[in-house]
């Protein structure tokens, strides 16, 4: 199979060859054209020129239906599920549901079909009758893949496109996904795998193609390339170290102190953070990391124990938190952080509007947006561009610019580099280091273990909302950390 595109501003003359039974990685920084390419194959966007061949036969892909009939299946990064509807119906979405007497929906059949598809993925633990929105992130991904499998009945899928499938998954869930990919591969399907995580790509992919600024840079078989080669191809520059080192010592003053804090989601959390210290919070998915961060934003009530920030009680609301120098970067960029239709400027100054007084002062806002946009190395068409038009990495930089603008004393980062490319990631790490050097304390949650180890001074491992371990990160490896996720609390004594 070969595909050629040309003349699209976001993508120029890119050719991609995929063969059955192989996993092909598509890599590149944000804005490199990966999403555009996928949308073209999916028939969502129209190419200025494009030719698709399948087994030597020309194929026209003009809309989503063509792509589907050609056997292309897409699993997107932002999962489009219908949260109120049961897992089974989500799996069978877009198909006619099986019927009894040609009329009533045959719910037993629906259930069996969905369960069979999930069983093929080894995800028998998922109850297909619960609403899809109640599933943990990893199970949602399994559900989407199952949906892609079920729709295979009409036409044998020849190509699966997975866009950042592990971005929302924990290590364990990712392993399951890799098993599934292996199985799909042996069935003879070809897989286009889009990811920012190089280690993952090196492990499970057979070939890799790298794009940069909408152009084809390199394509190679995985055994013939290396991590360094790929990074070089993606960024056009060498990368010695993925994480900048701490250069200033941690301060003396205590910024945050939690003593045996319990809320409805958290139990017995106990730690201090000093000025400039970076505390990592890790653990399996949804073990209470986000709830811990939100506690500092004044969301969630402390039932027992005591907590202080700058020697006073924790803020009671997000507005008080921002006013007292706490900056928050939520996990879900699109739904929790940004007003997508609004400008870069409005999004950067949003939490700080009160500092401009009663009357709006657009000129001051412009200056600030420019200054902080520069600081985070934002790439946009000016401060008035709607943020929805920017790439994921640049959107995240806007959320960072917003945080920097307040000159924070405490920075809360919930999965700050999720879906962000290597170049932007490094910029973000540098910013975190810079803030820490200025004495700002940081709490960072991440499921990316090397990131936690590379950036944090100490690591809090959580398990079902409980504090399982509090570890010094020096000298630890990912494997060490992972074992702590599954071992019991030694401090229980």
């Amino acid at each position, binding site marked *: 199979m070969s595909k050629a595109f040309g003349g699209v501003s976001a993508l120029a003359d890119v050719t991609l060859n995929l063969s059955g039974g192989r996993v092909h990685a598509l890599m590149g920084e944000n804005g490199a054209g990966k999403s555009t390419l996928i949308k073209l194959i999916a028939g969502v966007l129209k190419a200025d020129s494009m030719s698709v061949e399948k087994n030597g036969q020309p194929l026209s892909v003009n809309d989503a239906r063509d792509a589907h009939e050609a056997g292309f299946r897409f699993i997107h990064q932002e999962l489009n599920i219908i949260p109120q509807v049961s897992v089974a119906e989500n799996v069978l979405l877009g198909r006619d549901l099986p019927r009894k007497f040609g009329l009533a929906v045959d719910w037993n059949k629906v259930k069996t079909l969905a369960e069979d598809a999930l069983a093929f993925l080894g995800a028998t633990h998922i109850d297909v009758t619960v609403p899809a929105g109640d599933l943990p992130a990893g199970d949602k991904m399994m559900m989407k893949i199952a949906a892609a499998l079920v729709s295979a009945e009409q036409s044998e899928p020849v190509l699966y496109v997975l866009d950042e499938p592990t971005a929302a998954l924990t290590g364990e869930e990712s392993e399951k996904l890799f098993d599934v990919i292996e199985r799909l591969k042996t069935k003879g399907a070809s897989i286009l795998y889009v990811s920012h995580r190089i280690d993952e790509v090196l492990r499970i992919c057979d070939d890799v193609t790298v794009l940069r600024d909408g152009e084809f840079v390199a394509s190679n078989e995985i055994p013939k390339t290396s991590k360094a080669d790929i990074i070089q191809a993606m960024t056009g520059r060498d990368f010695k170290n993925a994480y900048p080192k701490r250069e200033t010592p941690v301060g003396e003053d205590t910024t945050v102190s939690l003593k045996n804090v319990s809320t409805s989601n958290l139990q017995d959390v106990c730690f201090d953070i000093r000025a400039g210290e970076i505390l990592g919070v890790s653990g399996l998915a949804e073990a209470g990391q986000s709830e811990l961060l939100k506690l500092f934003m004044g969301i969630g009530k402390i039932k027992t124990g005591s907590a202080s920030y700058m020697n006073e009680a924790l803020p009671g609301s997000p507005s008080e938190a921002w006013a007292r120098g706490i900056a928050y970067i939520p996990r879900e960029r699109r739904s929790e952080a940004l007003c997508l*239709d*609004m400008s870069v400027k409005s999004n950067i100054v*949003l939490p700080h509007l009160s500092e401009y007084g009663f009357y709006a002062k657009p000129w001051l806002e412009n200056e600030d947006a420019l200054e902080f946009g520069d600081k985070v190395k934002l790439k946009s068409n000016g401060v008035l561009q709607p943020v929805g038009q920017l790439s994921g990495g640049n959107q995240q930089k806007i959320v960072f610019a917003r945080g920097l603008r307040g000159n924070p004393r405490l920075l809360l980062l919930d999965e700050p580099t999720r879906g962000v490319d290597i170049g932007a990631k490094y910029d973000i790490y540098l910013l975190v280091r810079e803030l820490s050097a200025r004495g700002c304390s940081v709490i960072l949650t991440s499921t990316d273990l090397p990131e936690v180890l590379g950036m944090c001074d100490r690591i809090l491992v959580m398990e079902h909302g409980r504090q399982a371990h509090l570890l010094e990160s020096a000298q630890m490896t990912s494997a060490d950390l992972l074992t702590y996720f599954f071992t019991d609390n030694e401090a229980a004594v």
Partner: protein
Amino acid sequence: MLQKLRQSGTLLGFFLILLFFALKLPDTFLTARNLINISQQLSMLAVVAATMTIVMVMNDFDLSVGSMASLSGIVAAMLFTAGYPVWVGLSVALLVGVFGGLFNGFLVSVVGILPFVATLGTLTVFSGLAFLLSDGKTIFGRDIPSSFSGFARAGIEIGDVKVPMLTITAGLVIFICWAILEHTNFGRRLYAIGGNKEASYLAGIKVVRLRLIAFSLTGLGAAGAGLMYAARVASANPTQGSGLMLDAIAAVFLGMTMSRRGEPKVVYTLVGVLILGVLDNGMTQLRVDSYVREIFVGLIVLAAVAVASLSKRRNAK
């Protein structure tokens, strides 16, 4: 390019409508007297639509404005009847608007009912109250003090034209709403809430409080319009505001077709109000049946919004 066309399409339509009536009614339509007349007819709708814009900026709605307008007129007239001075009647009626709006805001932002459902409920409540207080009767005649109804007939002479006080009041309200939404940080926050409620809340915007304030402003506007109406007809009737709600929402929607990202703006709402007002005035003069007029106005609103959303979708592609 297409976007520009979409944005200016509504304005173009407005000028075409003006041109049409000017040609059809050469003697009466484009005269100072008729235009002044239109501006006065429109003033109530303008006030309600401008204050409605404040909640619609947050993606909220207020369906209760019409019955609030009726209620405030009735409250004022009852107080006049009971012998209270004019200023007391006006203040209490406006306060009723503020509290009615606050109640809407409470239901929507504190209790968390969808604005459509919450204000549909209060629409009925306010209307029922108006009937209950007035016993379903129109209050008119000697009960309405002339200093109150005289306001609607008064005006300021500019050159040889007399600009009615109602028009001036509407102009002031529009100006204030415009200043609030476009030039204060309060307005900026309302637009942010409309952009993404959850993100605004997490970014430290006091969403609950702002929605309360916004709804109370809309209630205040509705009450004000009710008083203007009562002054103009020198009477109060428990149904007299009922037509305002649909027209106000239609005006905001017409206006939204003109803004860049489809967000409501006071200035564009004013254009929407003018379109509706001019249509009404022109067709009345052409002796078009009022039922036909309603069908026609509905179709025009649908057409404008349909064109806007179609071109928007094409833009997104």
